[in-house]
């Protein structure tokens, strides 16, 4: 990332004349948010004017908006002036030099997840170059993609190198003023991913944030934009099963997907942010806006998510089924243990003719956690022959947790065919005793039952990811029983 230090310094100093900001070299802005901070972020990223203007419009709209209170989550009020909106990654000097300096508890978890040794260092934030060289992998990867004409880069690079694409599609699915957190993200987003798959191209590999350079630098306000041009296909994997430690408590990401005529996007997420300790202290607040626009006829967008982390999850990956015959899918496993709170689900907006959507949501609650499914199926008057199938299952482990279901349906076309099935079940003492009597330990029995419960969703994940997700679930629910 190229920056112009003098420029930033002058901007920042305009506002913070009082001298308390002395170490601009640390590459972080002081806490607080106003127009100058938005300008500083944009300047630091060397953005064109239109990008800055876009951010400023978002910021002004955000000022007039209020934080939503309808979600089934509780947390102390967030002071948005207490947050620092730009922090570059730690320099190598601040990082652990080797795995010996990393928290043994974290390493233990990596071990349980079966993460390859050479990957552990990267995940734990060890100065990467000191440990292993990823250049060869990345280069092969990049060569293959450019051969196919696929653009896959950081959002900042996209603004610099493909401004016409970014300007055309940015905010076209999630407008700046869509909601409080989306507006905030639009004003101050740090970085993220950009993908463009040209007409008729089937992306030759699964794209993963894992391989993207600077993946660790995206920070708390991540912005992702994926455009699949006519007749193209792409599968995108976000996140990682390994627990990621982050100093930032508030995360507000925005993901926009655009599928043009005959295109298909498959977006898979495994989210495992720090959920706080077993007493509910610490943990990430995750307020995410994810939306896909099936803009062209016969297009398809499929969301698959496994959510195990964060203290609070507020997330509703949605599909706008605009094109005729378009298809939207949402497969979700949300786990909440200890004091975690999850309010997650989806929105399927049927606009085109003959559109169909499928929702399969599996919520698992353990400890004192609260897990809510919130979903909207909306069929517009012109959406003839729309079909939706919703299946919403909750699994409770223990006596102190809760599961909640809030299904909303707005059907404005009498020909729509909408089905909703919901179940709530418990892992019973008798089930566990039965398994134990067959020689299976209690922990293995819980894992077996939970994995059985989630099978339909895991089947939707790319193979390798599914194996990791399963291991992750086992670790997340460790000690949930007994």
């Amino acid at each position: 990332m190229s920056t112009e230090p003098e420029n930033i310094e002058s901007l920042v100093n305009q506002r913070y004349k009082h001298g308390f900001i002395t170490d601009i070299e640390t590459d972080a802005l002081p806490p607080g948010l106003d127009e100058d901070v938005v300008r500083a972020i944009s300047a630091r990223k060397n953005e064109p004017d239109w990008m800055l203007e876009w951010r400023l419009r978002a910021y002004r709209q955000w000022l007039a908006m209020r934080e939503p209170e309808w979600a089934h989550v509780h947390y102390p009020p967030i002071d948005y002036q207490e947050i620092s909106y730009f922090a570059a990654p730690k320099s190598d000097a601040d990082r652990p030099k080797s795995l010996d300096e990393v928290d043994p508890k974290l390493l233990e978890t990596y071990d349980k997840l079966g993460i390859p040794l050479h990957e552990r260092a990267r995940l734990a934030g060890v100065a990467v170059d000191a440990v292993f060289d990823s250049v060869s992998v990345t280069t092969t990867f990049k060569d293959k993609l450019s051969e196919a004409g696929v653009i896959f880069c950081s959002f900042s690079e996209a603004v610099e190198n493909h401004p016409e694409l970014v300007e055309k599609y940015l905010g076209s699915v999630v407008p700046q003023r869509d909601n409080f957190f989306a507006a905030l993200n639009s004003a101050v987003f740090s970085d993220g991913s950009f993908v463009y798959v040209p007409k008729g191209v089937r992306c030759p590999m699964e794209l993963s944030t894992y391989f993207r350079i600077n993946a660790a630098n995206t920070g708390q306000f991540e912005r992702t934009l994926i455009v699949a041009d006519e007749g193209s296909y792409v599968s995108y994997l976000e996140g990682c099963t390994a627990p990621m430690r982050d100093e930032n408590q508030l995360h507000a990401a925005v993901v926009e997907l655009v599928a043009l005529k005959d295109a298909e996007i498959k977006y898979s997420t495994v989210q495992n942010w720090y959920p706080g300790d077993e007493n509910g202290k610490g943990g990430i607040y995750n307020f995410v806006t994810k939306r896909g626009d099936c803009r062209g006829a016969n297009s398809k967008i499929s969301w698959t998510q496994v959510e195990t982390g964060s203290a609070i999850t507020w997330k509703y990956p949605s599909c706008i089924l605009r094109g005729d015959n378009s298809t939207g899918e949402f497969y979700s496993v949300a786990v909440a243990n200890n004091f975690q709170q999850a309010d997650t689900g989806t929105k399927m907006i049927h606009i085109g003719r003959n559109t169909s959507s499928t929702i399969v949501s599996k919520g698992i609650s353990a400890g004192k956690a609260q897990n809510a499914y919130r979903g909207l199926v909306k069929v517009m008057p012109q959406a003839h022959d729309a079909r939706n199938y919703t299946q919403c299952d909750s699994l409770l482990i223990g006596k102190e947790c809760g599961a909640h279901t809030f299904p909303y349906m707005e059907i404005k076309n009498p020909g729509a065919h909408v089905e909703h099935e919901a179940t709530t079940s418990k892992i019973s003492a008798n089930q566990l005793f039965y398994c134990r009597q067959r020689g299976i330990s209690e922990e293995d029995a819980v894992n077996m039952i939970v994995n059985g419960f989630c099978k339909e969703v895991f089947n939707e994940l790319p193979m390798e990811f599914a194996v990791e997700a399963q291991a992750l679930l086992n670790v997340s629910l460790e000690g949930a029983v007994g």
Partner: protein
Amino acid sequence: MLRIQNLTARIGDTEILSGLSLSVEAGEVHAIMGPNGSGKSTLAQVVAGHADYEVTAGSVEFKGQDLLELEPEERAREGVFLGFQYPVEIPGVNNAYLLKAAVNAKREHRGQDEIDAFEFMKLAREKMAMLGMDQKFLSRGVNEGFSGGEKKRNEILQMAMLEPELAILDETDSGLDIDALKAVAGGVNALRSPDRAIVLVTHYQRLLDYVEPDFVHVLSDGRIARSGDKTLALKLEAQGYDWVKEAVGA
């Protein structure tokens, strides 16, 4: 093999077993009979280690070790099998998966390698054919939507796969039609061997027409009121349980 001495156990405040003693040796088949509420099922659950039952006195030894010290899964791996009266449904968990996990837990305990997938399938098919079970049961959820008879056959299948040293079958015959009863009995008889003991907990004589016991015990008020050979079962069938109570009371 199994030595129960003066076993007293309760659930909540209700004492159900009151000083029960029973010895079972390898190679033997014992039938435990008795009226409803006499403690038959409790005995089975206590030996298996169900947490709802509290042992307040007495001892249970299995192969010379104190069974009450062990967790339920450890007892199972040591060779104690309980065929449940009401096998529980575990939706979404594949029957084959549970079976394989159980077989492997036992093998690991013995220091053996995990069973090979092909070997496992071959063994499972063999046992299922013997029990007259359709192979599609393997891919269904554990007991999910099974009929009463199917659940009981499934218990016997698990027993056949795990080859326990001590098998306690709790009312495995109840609610079975004659074909299922014969299949279950066939499964039990196939397992009879000089180094294995079988305890049949049953309400009726019916099963004993097909699996001939070496000993029959009658439970009453939480202890063994009377023991004998198979003729005792026939007598119970003819005269009901009341005479046992009267005999004890006298």
